[in-house]
């Protein structure tokens, strides 16, 4: 029995040694508890305080990390980023409340920003004025950083542009039965339906939803698989954001059998939305946070977004990626994105039409 005891003790010792070794070997600095570092910084007020910034980013790391790094190098500000889905980060911010360590919320869509709007500060007018009025929140709590257009992605083996209608409403025609794909749970798609409610009204939006539903659309969880399905010929047309296509073209080459179509009628099907950001009112680094937003609106960053992520620059004087249809050739509906906040009513409509549970 004594032997067993010894074995047990040996096992525990071995395990702890192993774990300490692992802990020592872990390369990420983040494993050391951050609060301790903050403590130290507080105790030494004399030294010039190295500024730091914590960003919650709903935009994916692959897309925005390079430009965030560039900001860090240019300013010497230490940037820490938490990446997750926009909606999940919005919920996280709500749960954290005043204790949130975040300074900036960088979101995929206005919906996520709208959900935490009361936790954000009003941005200076000079910053807001850099983008058009429709691209920031009406009371100035978030600002659009890059633009994304709603498009119809179509399979080029089955269709040409001339086969496609002017308005998204026309897809309720029975000739499109079994040929449509959509991602009804996707935030951008839902924002488009909210725009429909604002532009068309509830009745016509309901008609559209029911009409598409009657055409047996294929349901996808998000944009990427919808575009993939259009390229593979699983569907003829899909309702998506414009930039996913270019990533597929990059990955698969020109032979990828799908292209974008911008609906020319100026209805909600041609909505242009933004990814944007705001500053948390609980932030202890508001100055650094403002510098971050300024940087994101600078020509360097704007050029990065259109060049690398295939989005639209929102600031005057920055050249749009030549692969994209320029924003001024798109007849986008004339509405403010800040007016697309009532997502609960959109949800109710989805439930009523039986499209979502």
């Amino acid at each position, binding site marked *: 029995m004594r032997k067993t005891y010894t074995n047990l003790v040996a096992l525990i010792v071995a395990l702890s040694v192993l774990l300490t070794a692992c802990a020592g070997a872990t390369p990420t600095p*983040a494993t050391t508890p951050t609060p301790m570092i903050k403590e130290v910084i507080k105790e030494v007020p004399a030294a010039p305080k190295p500024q730091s910034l914590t960003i919650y980013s709903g935009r994916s790391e692959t897309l925005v990390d390079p430009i965030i790094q560039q900001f860090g190098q240019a300013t010497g500000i230490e940037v820490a980023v938490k990446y997750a889905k926009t909606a999940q980060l919005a919920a996280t911010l709500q749960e954290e409340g005043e204790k949130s360590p975040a300074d900036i919320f960088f979101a995929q869509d206005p919906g*996520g920003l709208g959900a935490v709007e009361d936790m954000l500060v009003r941005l200076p007018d000079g910053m807001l004025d850099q983008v058009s009025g429709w691209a920031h929140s009406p009371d100035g709590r978030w600002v659009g950083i890059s633009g994304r257009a709603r498009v119809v992605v179509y399979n080029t083996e089955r269709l040409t542009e001339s086969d496609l209608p002017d308005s998204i409403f026309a897809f309720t025609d029975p000739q499109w039965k079994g040929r449509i794909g959509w991602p009804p749970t996707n935030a951008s798609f839902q924002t488009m339906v909210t725009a429909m409610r604002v532009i068309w009204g509830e009745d016509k939006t309901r008609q559209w939803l029911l009409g598409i539903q009657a055409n047996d659309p294929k349901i996808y969880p998000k944009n990427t698989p919808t575009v993939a399905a259009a390229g593979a010929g699983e569907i003829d047309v899909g309702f998506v954001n414009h930039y996913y296509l270019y990533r597929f073209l990059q990955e698969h080459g020109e032979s990828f059998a799908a292209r974008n179509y911008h609906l020319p009628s100026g209805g909600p099907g041609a909505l242009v939305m933004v990814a944007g950001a705001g500053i948390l009112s609980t932030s202890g680094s508001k100055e650094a946070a403002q510098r971050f937003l300024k940087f994101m609106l600078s020509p360097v960053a704007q050029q990065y977004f259109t060049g690398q992520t295939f989005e639209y620059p929102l600031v005057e004087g920055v050249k749009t990626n030549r692969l994209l249809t320029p924003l001024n050739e798109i007849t986008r509906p004339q509405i403010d994105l800040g007016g697309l906040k009532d997502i609960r009513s959109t949800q109710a409509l989805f439930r009523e039409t039986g499209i979502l549970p």
Partner: protein
Amino acid sequence: MAPVGRAAGAARPPAVVWLSAALVAAAMVLPMVYLVVRALGAGAEVWELLFRGRTLAILARSVVLAAVVTGASTVIAVVLAWLTVRTDLPLRRWWAVLTILPLVIPSYVGAFLIIVGLGPRGMLQQFLEGPLGIERLPEIYGFPGAMLILTLLSYPYVLLTVRAALWRLDPALEEASLSLGHGAWDTFRRVTLPLLRPAIAAGALLVALYTLSDFGAVSLLRYETFTWAIYLQYEAALDRTAASALSLVLVALALSIVFLEATSRGRARYHRSTVGAVRRPATVRLGKWRWPALAFCGGIALFALAIPMAILVYWVVRGIAAGEALGQVWGVALNSAYVSGLAALACVAAALPVAYLSVRHPGRISNLLERISYMGFALPGIVIALALVFFGANFVTPIYQTVALLIFAYMVLFLPTALGAARASLLQVSPRVEEAARSLGRTPLQTMAAITLPLVRQGVLSGAALVFLVTMKELPATLLLSPIGFKTLATTTWAASSEAFFAKAAAPALLIIAVSSLAVAIMSWQERRGGSGSG
């Protein structure tokens, strides 16, 4: 015989055990407290949402999926376990490792790969189009696809518990049956299978709860389940009160499943009647049956592991050929192994007292403790993550977004995976051995350390390995609760796949499988050693 067992039940458990079990239960209750707090803030429209016919219909879809996946997983797992433990199946040890690995494939990766591979216009179709002119494969979306992928990814839960039980099973009972003239099949059905019941039930419970809580596979394969509806409230409606109200319904469903499993346990005892060395049972010679057996193992491994891995390898190779940098995956792999290892330790430490109480001191309270422990596993990861964001940020701010709280979250999520294994192996330890130690003057704690722990080492190790594997692929809690900038293989895979960068997503996904297979190999080596050694 019964009075002996009773006597053990009547002795008071040591305070250390009680206290730690109570602490664990308190931790497991946290998410439910959070859900109740949030749901209480809900307005009338949320209650309307809850009491619609449609809500019930979606709940029914979840139940049907969970039932079918559990049934199919159990059949596959019991056959595989028997083949890899009891027979002379060629390459048996390899199959033992390979057939467990599908467990580590995150469901959103597995589902995506199945669609790419077997979808109506997927790789298989393109492969067949040339020679055979097949233009379209049957639809895999909806129930068939969701059921297929969830079964393939979750049968290992049952396989692990049943394998561990088979290794420890006393062959004497089976030999007695055979000597009484019952055939091999009759013996399996009437002796082996009933003896395996606790192990099967423990694994099946995990499969059922996992299926209930899965989001990745059902969303990609378009099968509306209750968890999907909960996610929708977070992601589309940005409505955490409605999500919480719906989650409470899921808690109720999960609790009833846990209680169902508990009633199936009954009062049977599963330990050997005598104290002696465990013998290895005779190896069954498969003869010409080895070919169908091989085909079965091969088929499962092909669909659950080989096809997904082949696609991943294809993407990585294509990415490297295109000059794509795969990034810093090695440090990330170390991070994954580090937190998964800690999670395994934490879960085992938490599972032992709970399992010990429920096996040795069954009673209303200890049973309740054990059943509550399953709730974290049955709830969608995002719910647990947000609950701990709330408690972490507001009440234990210093450890918020540190590894400590992350490990705590893993414990809340994955305790049941260690608990089932610990429980099943405790059931196979005769209380008489412990009583002998007590009668020789050992305190209950000494007895536990000297007798019980060494005897359950086997099951506990397999439980720890299981926790390690499921932690490797955990996503929502890791994203929200990890220290800022801390990356794991799962978060790297997600980050890349969310924007359709195939090669970049494939490399970390492959590494998840590689690191995990190391853990599985160690475990199966331990298993064999323990199984063939003396008890």
